[in-house]
Protein backbone atom coordinates (compact mmCIF):
# COMPACT_ATOMS: atom_id res chain seq x y z
CA UNK A 1 0.00 0.00 0.00
CA UNK A 2 1.41 3.37 -0.93
CA UNK A 3 2.25 5.95 1.70
CA UNK A 4 -0.57 8.24 0.54
CA UNK A 5 -3.23 5.53 0.81
CA UNK A 6 -1.96 4.54 4.24
CA UNK A 7 -2.14 8.17 5.31
CA UNK A 8 -5.70 8.52 3.96
CA UNK A 9 -6.81 5.40 5.81
CA UNK A 10 -5.30 6.67 9.05
CA UNK A 11 -6.97 10.08 8.68
CA UNK A 12 -10.39 8.53 8.06
CA UNK A 13 -9.92 6.12 10.94
CA UNK A 14 -9.04 8.97 13.28
CA UNK A 15 -12.13 10.91 12.21
CA UNK A 16 -14.60 8.03 12.31
CA UNK A 17 -16.50 9.21 15.37
CA UNK A 18 -16.98 12.71 13.99
CA UNK A 19 -18.09 11.29 10.68
CA UNK A 20 -21.05 9.57 12.31
CA UNK A 21 -22.16 12.88 13.82
CA UNK A 22 -21.98 14.65 10.46
CA UNK A 23 -23.93 11.83 8.79
CA UNK A 24 -26.71 12.12 11.37
CA UNK A 25 -26.82 15.90 10.91
CA UNK A 26 -27.08 15.64 7.13
CA UNK A 27 -29.79 12.99 7.27
CA UNK A 28 -31.61 15.26 9.72
CA UNK A 29 -31.43 18.17 7.29
CA UNK A 30 -33.19 16.09 4.66
CA UNK A 31 -35.60 14.89 7.35
CA UNK A 32 -36.70 18.32 8.53
CA UNK A 33 -37.37 19.75 5.07
CA UNK A 34 -38.48 17.11 2.57
CA UNK A 35 -41.46 15.59 4.48
CA UNK A 36 -43.07 19.03 4.74
CA UNK A 37 -43.29 19.60 1.02
CA UNK A 38 -46.62 17.76 0.55
CA UNK A 39 -48.18 19.84 3.34
CA UNK A 40 -46.92 23.30 2.42
CA UNK A 41 -45.49 22.80 -1.05
CA UNK A 42 -46.68 23.47 -4.52
CA UNK A 43 -48.99 26.41 -5.09
CA UNK A 44 -49.08 27.48 -1.47
CA UNK A 45 -45.32 27.87 -1.21
CA UNK A 46 -45.14 29.40 -4.66
CA UNK A 47 -47.67 31.97 -3.51
CA UNK A 48 -45.50 32.92 -0.54
CA UNK A 49 -42.45 33.25 -2.74
CA UNK A 50 -44.38 35.31 -5.27
CA UNK A 51 -45.15 37.78 -2.49
CA UNK A 52 -41.40 38.39 -1.98
CA UNK A 53 -39.56 40.94 -4.12
CA UNK A 54 -38.38 38.94 -7.16
CA UNK A 55 -34.75 40.01 -6.66
CA UNK A 56 -34.84 38.62 -3.12
CA UNK A 57 -36.40 35.31 -4.01
CA UNK A 58 -33.99 34.90 -6.89
CA UNK A 59 -30.97 35.74 -4.78
CA UNK A 60 -32.08 33.24 -2.17
CA UNK A 61 -32.64 30.62 -4.83
CA UNK A 62 -36.32 30.45 -3.88
CA UNK A 63 -37.57 31.24 -7.37
CA UNK A 64 -37.68 27.52 -8.12
CA UNK A 65 -39.22 26.47 -4.84
CA UNK A 66 -42.65 25.78 -6.34
CA UNK A 67 -41.69 22.43 -7.85
CA UNK A 68 -40.74 19.41 -5.80
CA UNK A 69 -37.23 19.22 -7.28
CA UNK A 70 -36.87 22.97 -6.85
CA UNK A 71 -37.94 22.66 -3.23
CA UNK A 72 -35.31 20.00 -2.49
CA UNK A 73 -32.72 22.12 -4.30
CA UNK A 74 -33.63 25.34 -2.48
CA UNK A 75 -33.77 23.85 1.00
CA UNK A 76 -31.44 20.85 1.21
CA UNK A 77 -28.97 20.72 -1.68
CA UNK A 78 -28.56 24.44 -2.25
CA UNK A 79 -28.88 25.64 1.33
CA UNK A 80 -28.56 23.83 4.62
CA UNK A 81 -27.08 20.54 3.40
CA UNK A 82 -24.61 22.46 1.28
CA UNK A 83 -23.73 24.76 4.18
CA UNK A 84 -23.04 21.84 6.52
CA UNK A 85 -20.87 20.10 3.95
CA UNK A 86 -18.98 23.32 3.27
CA UNK A 87 -18.33 23.79 6.97
CA UNK A 88 -17.00 20.24 7.15
CA UNK A 89 -14.94 20.46 3.96
CA UNK A 90 -13.41 23.87 4.64
CA UNK A 91 -12.83 23.10 8.31
CA UNK A 92 -11.25 19.74 7.56
CA UNK A 93 -9.25 21.05 4.64
CA UNK A 94 -7.73 23.88 6.63
CA UNK A 95 -7.13 21.77 9.72
CA UNK A 96 -5.72 18.64 8.14
CA UNK A 97 -2.43 20.28 7.17
CA UNK A 98 -2.19 23.86 8.47
CA UNK A 99 -4.15 23.28 11.67
CA UNK A 100 -2.11 20.22 12.57
CA UNK A 101 1.05 22.08 11.71
CA UNK A 102 0.08 24.91 14.07
CA UNK A 103 -0.85 22.55 16.87
CA UNK A 104 2.39 20.55 16.44
CA UNK A 105 0.57 17.35 15.51
CA UNK A 106 2.09 17.31 12.04
CA UNK A 107 5.66 17.25 13.36
CA UNK A 108 5.88 13.48 13.89
CA UNK A 109 4.20 12.77 10.55
CA UNK A 110 6.69 14.92 8.67
CA UNK A 111 9.66 13.43 10.54
CA UNK A 112 8.46 9.93 9.59
CA UNK A 113 9.82 8.28 6.44
CA UNK A 114 7.03 9.69 4.28
CA UNK A 115 7.28 12.40 1.65
CA UNK A 116 5.48 15.64 2.40
CA UNK A 117 3.66 15.26 -0.92
CA UNK A 118 2.36 11.87 0.23
CA UNK A 119 1.05 13.44 3.42
CA UNK A 120 -0.84 16.06 1.40
CA UNK A 121 -2.08 13.44 -1.08
CA UNK A 122 -3.33 11.17 1.70
CA UNK A 123 -5.06 13.97 3.55
CA UNK A 124 -6.63 15.32 0.36
CA UNK A 125 -7.86 11.84 -0.49
CA UNK A 126 -9.29 11.45 3.01
CA UNK A 127 -11.20 14.72 2.52
CA UNK A 128 -12.54 13.56 -0.85
CA UNK A 129 -13.69 10.27 0.67
CA UNK A 130 -15.28 11.85 3.73
CA UNK A 131 -17.37 14.29 1.69
CA UNK A 132 -18.27 11.40 -0.63
CA UNK A 133 -19.53 9.30 2.27
CA UNK A 134 -21.56 12.17 3.67
CA UNK A 135 -23.06 13.14 0.32
CA UNK A 136 -24.03 9.48 -0.12
CA UNK A 137 -25.85 9.63 3.22
CA UNK A 138 -27.62 12.81 2.17
CA UNK A 139 -28.53 11.25 -1.17
CA UNK A 140 -29.87 8.08 0.43
CA UNK A 141 -31.92 10.01 3.00
CA UNK A 142 -33.29 12.39 0.36
CA UNK A 143 -34.15 9.60 -2.08
CA UNK A 144 -35.97 7.66 0.62
CA UNK A 145 -37.90 10.69 1.87
CA UNK A 146 -38.85 11.82 -1.62
CA UNK A 147 -40.24 8.38 -2.30
CA UNK A 148 -42.12 8.16 0.99
CA UNK A 149 -43.60 11.61 0.41
CA UNK A 150 -44.48 10.62 -3.16
CA UNK A 151 -42.80 13.70 -4.61
CA UNK A 152 -42.06 14.33 -8.24
CA UNK A 153 -38.25 14.20 -7.99
CA UNK A 154 -36.33 11.80 -10.21
CA UNK A 155 -33.70 9.66 -8.50
CA UNK A 156 -31.44 10.47 -11.45
CA UNK A 157 -31.82 14.17 -10.69
CA UNK A 158 -31.01 13.61 -7.04
CA UNK A 159 -27.95 11.62 -8.07
CA UNK A 160 -26.81 14.37 -10.41
CA UNK A 161 -27.34 17.00 -7.71
CA UNK A 162 -25.47 14.83 -5.20
CA UNK A 163 -22.54 14.35 -7.55
CA UNK A 164 -22.24 18.09 -8.13
CA UNK A 165 -22.72 18.90 -4.45
CA UNK A 166 -19.90 16.50 -3.65
CA UNK A 167 -17.61 18.01 -6.28
CA UNK A 168 -18.42 21.57 -5.20
CA UNK A 169 -17.88 21.14 -1.47
CA UNK A 170 -14.81 18.96 -2.01
CA UNK A 171 -13.20 21.43 -4.41
CA UNK A 172 -13.73 24.29 -1.95
CA UNK A 173 -12.35 22.10 0.85
CA UNK A 174 -9.28 21.29 -1.26
CA UNK A 175 -8.73 25.02 -1.81
CA UNK A 176 -8.72 25.49 1.98
CA UNK A 177 -6.30 22.56 2.29
CA UNK A 178 -3.99 23.94 -0.39
CA UNK A 179 -3.92 27.45 1.05
CA UNK A 180 -3.20 25.94 4.46
CA UNK A 181 -0.44 23.76 3.02
CA UNK A 182 1.09 26.74 1.26
CA UNK A 183 0.93 29.16 4.21
CA UNK A 184 0.90 26.94 7.28
CA UNK A 185 -1.93 29.03 8.68
CA UNK A 186 -5.31 27.47 9.34
CA UNK A 187 -7.24 30.74 9.49
CA UNK A 188 -5.98 31.74 6.06
CA UNK A 189 -7.17 28.41 4.67
CA UNK A 190 -10.58 28.84 6.30
CA UNK A 191 -10.86 32.44 5.09
CA UNK A 192 -9.98 31.66 1.49
CA UNK A 193 -12.20 28.55 1.39
CA UNK A 194 -15.17 30.28 2.98
CA UNK A 195 -14.55 33.38 0.87
CA UNK A 196 -14.61 31.30 -2.29
CA UNK A 197 -17.92 29.65 -1.35
CA UNK A 198 -19.62 32.87 -0.23
CA UNK A 199 -18.10 34.89 -3.08
CA UNK A 200 -19.32 32.30 -5.57
CA UNK A 201 -22.79 32.42 -4.08
CA UNK A 202 -22.93 36.22 -4.25
CA UNK A 203 -21.46 36.28 -7.76
CA UNK A 204 -24.12 33.84 -8.92
CA UNK A 205 -26.88 35.96 -7.38
CA UNK A 206 -25.58 39.13 -9.03
CA UNK A 207 -25.21 37.32 -12.36
CA UNK A 208 -28.89 36.41 -12.17
CA UNK A 209 -29.99 39.95 -11.43
CA UNK A 210 -27.73 42.10 -13.57
CA UNK A 211 -27.63 41.11 -17.25
CA UNK A 212 -24.29 42.86 -17.77
CA UNK A 213 -22.80 40.76 -14.98
CA UNK A 214 -23.97 37.40 -16.33
CA UNK A 215 -20.34 36.41 -16.88
CA UNK A 216 -19.95 36.19 -13.08
CA UNK A 217 -21.76 32.85 -13.23
CA UNK A 218 -18.90 31.51 -15.34
CA UNK A 219 -16.40 32.10 -12.56
CA UNK A 220 -18.62 31.09 -9.61
CA UNK A 221 -18.05 27.59 -8.24
CA UNK A 222 -21.53 27.81 -6.72
CA UNK A 223 -22.95 28.38 -10.20
CA UNK A 224 -20.89 25.46 -11.56
CA UNK A 225 -22.65 23.37 -8.92
CA UNK A 226 -26.25 24.58 -9.17
CA UNK A 227 -26.46 26.84 -12.22
CA UNK A 228 -27.49 23.95 -14.49
CA UNK A 229 -30.24 22.95 -12.04
CA UNK A 230 -28.99 19.34 -11.77
CA UNK A 231 -31.97 18.03 -9.75
CA UNK A 232 -34.18 18.88 -12.70
CA UNK A 233 -31.87 18.82 -15.71
CA UNK A 234 -29.36 16.17 -14.68
CA UNK A 235 -25.58 16.34 -14.76
CA UNK A 236 -24.08 19.56 -16.14
CA UNK A 237 -20.86 18.39 -17.83
CA UNK A 238 -19.37 21.88 -18.00
CA UNK A 239 -19.96 22.48 -14.31
CA UNK A 240 -18.61 19.07 -13.36
CA UNK A 241 -15.48 19.65 -15.42
CA UNK A 242 -14.79 23.01 -13.85
CA UNK A 243 -15.34 21.73 -10.31
CA UNK A 244 -12.99 18.81 -10.92
CA UNK A 245 -10.42 21.16 -12.41
CA UNK A 246 -10.66 23.51 -9.40
CA UNK A 247 -10.11 20.65 -6.98
CA UNK A 248 -7.24 19.21 -9.00
CA UNK A 249 -5.45 22.54 -9.32
CA UNK A 250 -5.83 23.16 -5.58
CA UNK A 251 -4.48 19.72 -4.73
CA UNK A 252 -1.49 20.05 -7.06
CA UNK A 253 -0.72 23.53 -5.73
CA UNK A 254 -0.86 22.39 -2.13
CA UNK A 255 1.37 19.33 -2.63
CA UNK A 256 3.93 21.43 -4.51
CA UNK A 257 4.14 24.36 -2.12
CA UNK A 258 4.37 22.38 1.12
CA UNK A 259 7.73 20.97 0.00
CA UNK A 260 9.30 24.38 -0.30
CA UNK A 261 9.09 25.80 3.16
CA UNK A 262 9.92 25.39 6.82
CA UNK A 263 7.26 23.56 8.78
CA UNK A 264 6.00 24.35 12.24
CA UNK A 265 7.69 27.71 12.76
Amino acid at each position, binding site marked *: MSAALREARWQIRRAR*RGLVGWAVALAAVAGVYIPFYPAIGGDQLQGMVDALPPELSQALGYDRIGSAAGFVTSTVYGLLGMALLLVLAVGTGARTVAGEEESGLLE*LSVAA*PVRRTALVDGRALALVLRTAMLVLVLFAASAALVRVSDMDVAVGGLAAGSLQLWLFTTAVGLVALAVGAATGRRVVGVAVGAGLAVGGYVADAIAGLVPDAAWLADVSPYAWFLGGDPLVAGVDPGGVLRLVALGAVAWLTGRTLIGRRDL*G*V
Partner: protein
Amino acid sequence: MTAIALDGLVKDYDGTRALDGVDLEVAPGEVFGFIGPNGAGKTTTMRILVDLLRPTAGTARVLGEEPRAGGPALRARLGYLPGELVLDERATARELLAHVATVRGRGAERIAPLAERFDLDLDRRIGELSKGNKQKVGLVQAVMHRPELALLDEPTSGLDPLLQREFLALVREERDAGTTVFLSSHVLSELEDVADRVALIREGRIAVVDDVAGLRAAAGQRLDVEFEGAVPAGAMEGLDEVRIDGARASGVWRGAPTPLLARLAGLPVRHVTLRDRNLEEIVLDAYRGDA
Protein backbone atom coordinates in the same frame (compact mmCIF):
# COMPACT_ATOMS: atom_id res chain seq x y z
CA MET B 1 31.07 8.39 8.45
CA THR B 2 29.91 10.70 11.20
CA ALA B 3 26.40 10.30 12.58
CA ILE B 4 25.85 14.05 12.60
CA ALA B 5 28.08 16.69 11.02
CA LEU B 6 27.10 20.32 11.27
CA ASP B 7 29.25 22.85 9.48
CA GLY B 8 28.64 26.56 9.96
CA LEU B 9 24.94 25.94 10.36
CA VAL B 10 22.89 29.14 10.35
CA LYS B 11 19.12 29.42 10.67
CA ASP B 12 17.14 32.65 10.59
CA TYR B 13 13.45 32.91 11.00
CA ASP B 14 11.02 35.66 11.86
CA GLY B 15 13.91 38.08 11.70
CA THR B 16 15.90 36.40 14.47
CA ARG B 17 19.01 34.28 14.17
CA ALA B 18 18.26 30.99 15.92
CA LEU B 19 21.52 29.32 14.91
CA ASP B 20 24.61 31.41 14.35
CA GLY B 21 27.20 29.10 12.82
CA VAL B 22 26.98 25.77 14.62
CA ASP B 23 29.86 23.32 14.08
CA LEU B 24 29.44 19.90 15.60
CA GLU B 25 30.37 16.28 14.95
CA VAL B 26 28.72 13.30 16.57
CA ALA B 27 30.44 9.95 16.11
CA PRO B 28 28.54 6.74 15.37
CA GLY B 29 27.68 4.77 18.47
CA GLU B 30 28.02 7.55 21.02
CA VAL B 31 25.46 9.09 23.30
CA PHE B 32 25.78 12.80 22.75
CA GLY B 33 24.22 15.33 25.09
CA PHE B 34 23.13 18.69 23.75
CA ILE B 35 22.75 21.15 26.59
CA GLY B 36 21.49 24.69 26.56
CA PRO B 37 18.88 26.98 28.02
CA ASN B 38 15.48 27.29 26.35
CA GLY B 39 15.80 29.31 23.17
CA ALA B 40 19.49 28.51 22.66
CA GLY B 41 18.83 26.62 19.41
CA LYS B 42 18.51 22.98 20.50
CA THR B 43 15.09 22.41 18.99
CA THR B 44 15.96 24.34 15.83
CA THR B 45 18.97 22.07 15.32
CA MET B 46 16.88 18.92 15.86
CA ARG B 47 14.26 20.15 13.41
CA ILE B 48 16.86 20.77 10.74
CA LEU B 49 18.14 17.22 11.20
CA VAL B 50 14.71 15.76 10.38
CA ASP B 51 14.09 18.25 7.53
CA LEU B 52 11.28 20.17 9.18
CA LEU B 53 13.40 23.30 8.75
CA ARG B 54 15.91 24.12 6.03
CA PRO B 55 19.25 25.79 6.87
CA THR B 56 19.73 29.45 5.97
CA ALA B 57 23.46 28.81 5.50
CA GLY B 58 25.98 26.10 6.24
CA THR B 59 25.37 22.39 5.94
CA ALA B 60 23.93 19.62 8.05
CA ARG B 61 24.70 15.99 7.34
CA VAL B 62 22.86 13.15 9.02
CA LEU B 63 24.31 9.66 8.54
CA GLY B 64 26.25 11.14 5.65
CA GLU B 65 23.36 12.79 3.85
CA GLU B 66 21.76 16.21 3.83
CA PRO B 67 18.30 15.92 5.42
CA ARG B 68 16.36 17.30 2.47
CA ALA B 69 18.18 15.26 -0.15
CA GLY B 70 18.05 12.14 2.02
CA GLY B 71 14.26 12.31 2.16
CA PRO B 72 12.14 9.43 3.43
CA ALA B 73 14.94 6.87 2.97
CA LEU B 74 17.14 8.83 5.39
CA ARG B 75 14.31 9.46 7.86
CA ALA B 76 13.61 5.71 7.91
CA ARG B 77 16.99 5.35 9.63
CA LEU B 78 16.13 7.94 12.31
CA GLY B 79 14.00 8.06 15.42
CA TYR B 80 12.68 11.42 16.53
CA LEU B 81 11.09 12.69 19.71
CA PRO B 82 9.91 16.32 19.36
CA GLY B 83 10.59 18.77 22.15
CA GLU B 84 6.97 19.83 22.20
CA LEU B 85 5.31 16.50 21.72
CA VAL B 86 1.76 16.67 20.38
CA LEU B 87 -0.05 13.40 19.74
CA ASP B 88 -3.43 12.60 18.32
CA GLU B 89 -5.69 12.73 21.38
CA ARG B 90 -8.43 10.69 19.77
CA ALA B 91 -6.38 7.57 19.06
CA THR B 92 -5.32 5.04 21.67
CA ALA B 93 -1.60 4.59 22.25
CA ARG B 94 -1.86 1.15 20.66
CA GLU B 95 -3.49 2.52 17.50
CA LEU B 96 -0.99 5.32 17.17
CA LEU B 97 2.07 3.13 17.72
CA ALA B 98 0.72 0.48 15.36
CA HIS B 99 0.26 3.18 12.74
CA VAL B 100 3.82 4.44 13.23
CA ALA B 101 5.11 0.87 12.92
CA THR B 102 3.14 0.43 9.68
CA VAL B 103 4.55 3.65 8.26
CA ARG B 104 8.09 2.61 9.18
CA GLY B 105 7.57 -0.99 8.19
CA ARG B 106 9.18 -2.25 11.40
CA GLY B 107 9.18 -1.96 15.17
CA ALA B 108 5.72 -3.40 15.91
CA GLU B 109 7.13 -6.30 17.91
CA ARG B 110 8.75 -3.93 20.42
CA ILE B 111 5.59 -1.97 21.27
CA ALA B 112 4.31 -4.37 23.90
CA PRO B 113 7.64 -4.98 25.71
CA LEU B 114 8.49 -1.28 25.81
CA ALA B 115 5.01 -0.38 27.03
CA GLU B 116 5.32 -2.94 29.78
CA ARG B 117 8.74 -1.70 30.77
CA PHE B 118 7.46 1.88 31.14
CA ASP B 119 4.14 0.80 32.62
CA LEU B 120 2.18 2.39 29.78
CA ASP B 121 -1.48 1.48 29.27
CA LEU B 122 -1.80 1.05 25.52
CA ASP B 123 -5.58 0.91 25.43
CA ARG B 124 -6.40 4.31 26.81
CA ARG B 125 -7.03 7.20 24.49
CA ILE B 126 -4.04 9.51 24.38
CA GLY B 127 -6.24 12.44 25.37
CA GLU B 128 -6.80 10.74 28.72
CA LEU B 129 -3.10 10.19 29.44
CA SER B 130 -1.01 12.33 31.78
CA LYS B 131 1.87 14.37 30.38
CA GLY B 132 4.36 11.78 31.59
CA ASN B 133 2.44 8.95 29.93
CA LYS B 134 2.22 10.88 26.66
CA GLN B 135 5.97 11.34 26.86
CA LYS B 136 6.32 7.55 27.20
CA VAL B 137 4.34 7.10 23.98
CA GLY B 138 6.70 9.58 22.34
CA LEU B 139 9.76 7.70 23.58
CA VAL B 140 8.46 4.33 22.46
CA GLN B 141 7.75 5.56 18.93
CA ALA B 142 11.21 7.15 18.76
CA VAL B 143 13.19 3.98 19.55
CA MET B 144 10.96 0.99 18.85
CA HIS B 145 12.28 0.45 15.31
CA ARG B 146 15.92 0.45 16.50
CA PRO B 147 16.97 3.47 14.45
CA GLU B 148 20.61 4.06 13.54
CA LEU B 149 20.31 7.53 15.06
CA ALA B 150 17.81 8.61 17.70
CA LEU B 151 17.17 12.36 17.97
CA LEU B 152 15.54 13.02 21.33
CA ASP B 153 14.60 16.60 22.17
CA GLU B 154 14.19 17.01 25.94
CA PRO B 155 13.31 13.31 26.34
CA THR B 156 13.12 13.29 30.13
CA SER B 157 10.77 16.23 30.48
CA GLY B 158 7.59 15.21 32.24
CA LEU B 159 9.06 11.97 33.58
CA ASP B 160 9.39 11.42 37.31
CA PRO B 161 12.91 10.59 38.60
CA LEU B 162 12.29 6.84 38.63
CA LEU B 163 11.16 6.86 35.03
CA GLN B 164 14.03 9.17 34.08
CA ARG B 165 16.41 6.52 35.36
CA GLU B 166 14.56 3.78 33.49
CA PHE B 167 14.68 5.88 30.36
CA LEU B 168 18.40 6.53 30.69
CA ALA B 169 18.95 2.78 31.15
CA LEU B 170 17.05 2.29 27.89
CA VAL B 171 19.27 4.86 26.17
CA ARG B 172 22.36 2.90 27.25
CA GLU B 173 20.86 -0.33 25.95
CA GLU B 174 19.98 1.23 22.63
CA ARG B 175 23.51 2.55 22.37
CA ASP B 176 24.89 -0.91 23.15
CA ALA B 177 22.63 -2.28 20.42
CA GLY B 178 24.27 0.12 17.96
CA THR B 179 22.06 3.21 18.03
CA THR B 180 23.69 6.63 18.10
CA VAL B 181 21.76 8.84 20.50
CA PHE B 182 21.64 12.63 20.27
CA LEU B 183 19.62 14.00 23.13
CA SER B 184 19.03 17.46 24.49
CA SER B 185 18.24 18.90 27.85
CA HIS B 186 18.37 22.25 29.56
CA VAL B 187 19.88 20.59 32.63
CA LEU B 188 23.13 18.72 32.40
CA SER B 189 22.55 16.62 35.51
CA GLU B 190 19.91 14.67 33.62
CA LEU B 191 22.47 13.59 31.05
CA GLU B 192 25.78 13.40 32.87
CA ASP B 193 25.35 9.73 33.74
CA VAL B 194 24.53 8.67 30.20
CA ALA B 195 26.26 11.05 27.80
CA ASP B 196 29.68 10.12 26.40
CA ARG B 197 30.19 13.69 25.25
CA VAL B 198 28.34 16.92 25.75
CA ALA B 199 28.02 20.12 23.74
CA LEU B 200 26.84 23.32 25.34
CA ILE B 201 24.91 25.61 23.04
CA ARG B 202 24.28 29.22 23.87
CA GLU B 203 22.62 31.88 21.72
CA GLY B 204 22.88 29.74 18.60
CA ARG B 205 26.57 28.91 18.99
CA ILE B 206 28.41 25.94 20.45
CA ALA B 207 30.22 27.14 23.58
CA VAL B 208 31.97 23.91 24.63
CA VAL B 209 32.27 20.33 23.43
CA ASP B 210 33.85 17.86 25.83
CA ASP B 211 33.27 14.62 27.66
CA VAL B 212 31.80 14.78 31.11
CA ALA B 213 35.15 14.03 32.79
CA GLY B 214 36.84 16.79 30.80
CA LEU B 215 34.18 19.29 31.77
CA ARG B 216 34.60 18.26 35.36
CA ALA B 217 38.40 18.70 35.23
CA ALA B 218 38.10 22.11 33.63
CA ALA B 219 35.58 23.04 36.25
CA GLY B 220 37.90 22.37 39.21
CA GLN B 221 36.82 22.02 42.80
CA ARG B 222 35.15 24.36 45.22
CA LEU B 223 36.94 25.08 48.49
CA ASP B 224 35.03 26.28 51.55
CA VAL B 225 37.23 26.98 54.54
CA GLU B 226 36.81 28.54 58.00
CA PHE B 227 39.86 29.71 59.96
CA GLU B 228 40.53 30.44 63.63
CA GLY B 229 40.25 34.21 63.41
CA ALA B 230 40.65 36.27 60.23
CA VAL B 231 41.60 34.70 56.91
CA PRO B 232 45.43 34.68 56.78
CA ALA B 233 47.10 36.65 54.00
CA GLY B 234 47.91 34.51 50.97
CA ALA B 235 45.62 31.68 52.07
CA MET B 236 43.46 32.00 48.97
CA GLU B 237 46.19 32.65 46.45
CA GLY B 238 45.78 30.83 43.16
CA LEU B 239 42.03 30.32 43.55
CA ASP B 240 39.33 31.82 41.33
CA GLU B 241 36.08 33.41 42.38
CA VAL B 242 37.45 34.04 45.85
CA ARG B 243 35.05 35.33 48.47
CA ILE B 244 36.16 36.27 51.98
CA ASP B 245 33.72 36.93 54.80
CA GLY B 246 35.37 37.32 58.25
CA ALA B 247 36.90 33.96 59.14
CA ARG B 248 35.35 32.20 56.17
CA ALA B 249 36.59 32.02 52.62
CA SER B 250 35.58 30.20 49.46
CA GLY B 251 36.95 29.84 45.95
CA VAL B 252 37.49 27.55 42.96
CA TRP B 253 40.71 25.55 42.70
CA ARG B 254 41.80 24.08 39.36
CA GLY B 255 44.46 21.41 38.99
CA ALA B 256 45.83 18.82 41.41
CA PRO B 257 44.85 19.58 45.01
CA THR B 258 48.18 18.67 46.70
CA PRO B 259 49.71 22.21 46.87
CA LEU B 260 46.46 23.61 48.24
CA LEU B 261 46.25 20.92 50.92
CA ALA B 262 49.88 21.48 51.88
CA ARG B 263 49.25 25.21 52.27
CA LEU B 264 46.13 24.69 54.37
CA ALA B 265 47.94 22.19 56.60
CA GLY B 266 50.16 25.02 57.83
CA LEU B 267 47.28 27.32 58.68
CA PRO B 268 44.84 27.40 61.64
CA VAL B 269 41.89 25.79 59.86
CA ARG B 270 38.73 25.12 61.88
CA HIS B 271 36.66 23.51 59.11
CA VAL B 272 37.22 22.70 55.44
CA THR B 273 35.43 21.12 52.50
CA LEU B 274 36.77 20.55 49.00
CA ARG B 275 34.29 19.16 46.52
CA ASP B 276 33.77 18.76 42.75
CA ARG B 277 31.77 21.60 41.38
CA ASN B 278 28.54 20.27 40.05
CA LEU B 279 28.04 20.41 36.36
CA GLU B 280 25.34 23.03 36.60
CA GLU B 281 27.98 25.46 37.78
CA ILE B 282 30.15 24.54 34.82
CA VAL B 283 27.28 25.08 32.48
CA LEU B 284 26.68 28.46 34.06
CA ASP B 285 30.33 29.34 33.42
CA ALA B 286 29.85 28.44 29.80
CA TYR B 287 26.65 30.43 29.57
CA ARG B 288 28.46 33.42 30.94
CA GLY B 289 31.19 32.91 28.37
CA ASP B 290 33.92 31.94 30.85
CA ALA B 291 34.48 28.46 29.54
